[in-house]
């Protein structure tokens, strides 16, 4: 019965988990591996899940930690090509492509911890308090990481607008 319950919840959450991993890791191949690894971890820890209704946040923590560890191990970040639809939908296509590339590089330069917090805040739309609970860190730490991450990203975009070449 445990296996049945696990499969049911895993299938229910697989799509969103895979997408979250893709955004954190930046490419679908790594995301597949990380998502699978996270579900393996979830199965191994299955009986620590006391309330199946809380599978989502419980598994999110496992997944995010798996992705973060993967980022730390590989120490690399690949920017993804975005669909032209994004640039077109967001306004001037040329500027958006420029912004996108700069933003990709700036995101890649963030530490794994900063990257995770930014993704959870602006992809998952979680509050700082929710992120704190998910990552089991103080809310103040979340605020601090967000502040520093956004500061770096803003500086990178402002430099690009001013024609300053990116640091290498």
């Amino acid at each position, binding site marked *: 019965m445990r*296996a049945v319950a696990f499969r049911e919840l895993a299938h229910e959450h697989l799509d969103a988990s895979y997408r979250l991993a893709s955004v954190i890791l930046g490419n679908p191949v790594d995301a597949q591996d990380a998502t699978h690894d996270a579900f*393996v971890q979830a199965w*191994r820890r299955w009986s620590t899940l006391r309330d199946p209704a809380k599978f989502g946040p419980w598994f999110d923590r496992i997944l995010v930690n798996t992705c973060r560890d993967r980022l730390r191990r590989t120490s690399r970040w690949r920017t993804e090509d975005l669909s032209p639809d994004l640039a077109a939908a967001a306004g001037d296509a040329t500027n958006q492509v420029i912004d996108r590339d700069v*933003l990709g590089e700036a995101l890649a330069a963030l530490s794994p911890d900063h990257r995770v917090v930014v993704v959870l805040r602006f992809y998952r739309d979680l509050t700082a308090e929710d992120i704190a609970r998910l990552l089991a860190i103080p809310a103040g730490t979340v605020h601090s990481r967000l502040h520093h991450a956004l500061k770096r990203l803003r500086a990178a975009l402002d430099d690009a607008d001013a024609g300053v070449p990116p640091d290498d």
Partner: protein
Amino acid sequence: MIDRELEQILQTRFRAEADGTGSTPTALYASVSGIPDATAFAAAPPVPRHVLLLAAAVLVALVIGGVLAVGSGLIRLPRPPDEDLSQLSTVLLHPIFPCDLTMDDGVAFEMEYRVDASGAPGTLVVDSDGLAIRGPQPAVPSAVPHEQRRMTLGGLSQLLGAVEASGLRDCVNLPVPGPQAVSARIDDEIVKIEFDFGLNIRVPTQAELDAAETLAERLTDPDLGIAASEWIDADWQPYEHDRWQIMFRRWEGLVPCCWTSELLRDVPWPEMVLPDGSTFMTVGSTMPIAPPTGYVETRCHVIPAAERADWLEVFGDPTSDPSIDMWMLHDGVRGGGFQISMTFLLPHEIGCRMPSDPSPRQNLIGDLDVCGYLAFPVWPGNGRETEVFDGGWALCEYLAHGWVFASRHPVSSEAATAVVANQFGRDYTTDSVAGRTVYLNACIEPDPACRPAIAISADPHLVIVVPDRQTSPDALRDLAAAVIRSIAER
């Protein structure tokens, strides 16, 4: 650039990245579905997180403190430090979940086992009249059909007698290959034995191991070790299910998170009439079970097998795989829908049953004899944290007032002192109880929810007790005395 602009850019970018990822690969669905069959299951009980954190922290402290102490030349550890570190680094500690000592009425014997080479879980049930039915558990993908075979009451007596003769009781978990778990009703008492399931929760005696091997060998025999003369049917025969249970989980508005569009069927369910004349909103009865996130109601209905085809016609796409037993029906115009699953019922199963309360003995055993492991690696430094180490820590029990964690291997009192000093810092006092040094700790973490804990140096094992409620220093000392008495009696 102002913050709001940057935030909008990030939101747009991330959503586009997620959309650009495409559908979840089928291979990922398949690999995740196969995890339970391919990966060892780790069992754990509902231990409060702070308890786990405490014990893990102490274990980490033991490793760090012990290594540091050895490095300083001040402390002698019971084993060479390299060995300690290499072994403890792979420890996974899992407390077990509460022992389930319930059986359905009319069932005399039940066994969980692997039905095929893929490891798909199955169940063999023998009712009190001697009818045995075996096959895959519901929703398990397996080509193995269900089978039945009737034994005499004498044969049933032989089967139960074998369990009784083993002398094993009360969810004992033994590292012996065999069926996963066996439950038997013996003289109105339920006995449960687990084989090589999860992790070893305590050090078994040789007598227990021998008894488990004998019993496992018997139960893995297709004839269950029952004499041929006690089988009414000469061999196993096909069994056809006579009833099915249908669960309807309803959601409102948008489809619950994460179901891909390929799995959804768009049907006008509010107007649909089901085969028994009911509607999706009135079918069966409401179940007071916690639905998965996103669902607002669960209804359940039992149907005879003869009506199954009619219901399948409502739920399933005629072109879909006939073996599918779960459907997602969605009203694309008005929103809302149902996740529907259909599973067979065995003869003894009532179906749509409310969750049962634990038996009194189940609680008793939970109080007296729960041992196990923490549910996460305590030392993930070498990347082998997912390996299971069947040694090291942590024999544990739940005594009257709290969780007790004990080292499986001897720990010198000096090392224990180093652990406590390392973990508790200055925030502890010592006392002497029954000749043992007892360390009383006010709180292990800066958390208002943290409860006082104690650590007891009880040569040759380090014992840590975590009370399950706010406890006064006097009560802590009483608890320590009780633990020491318990240890002395072993």
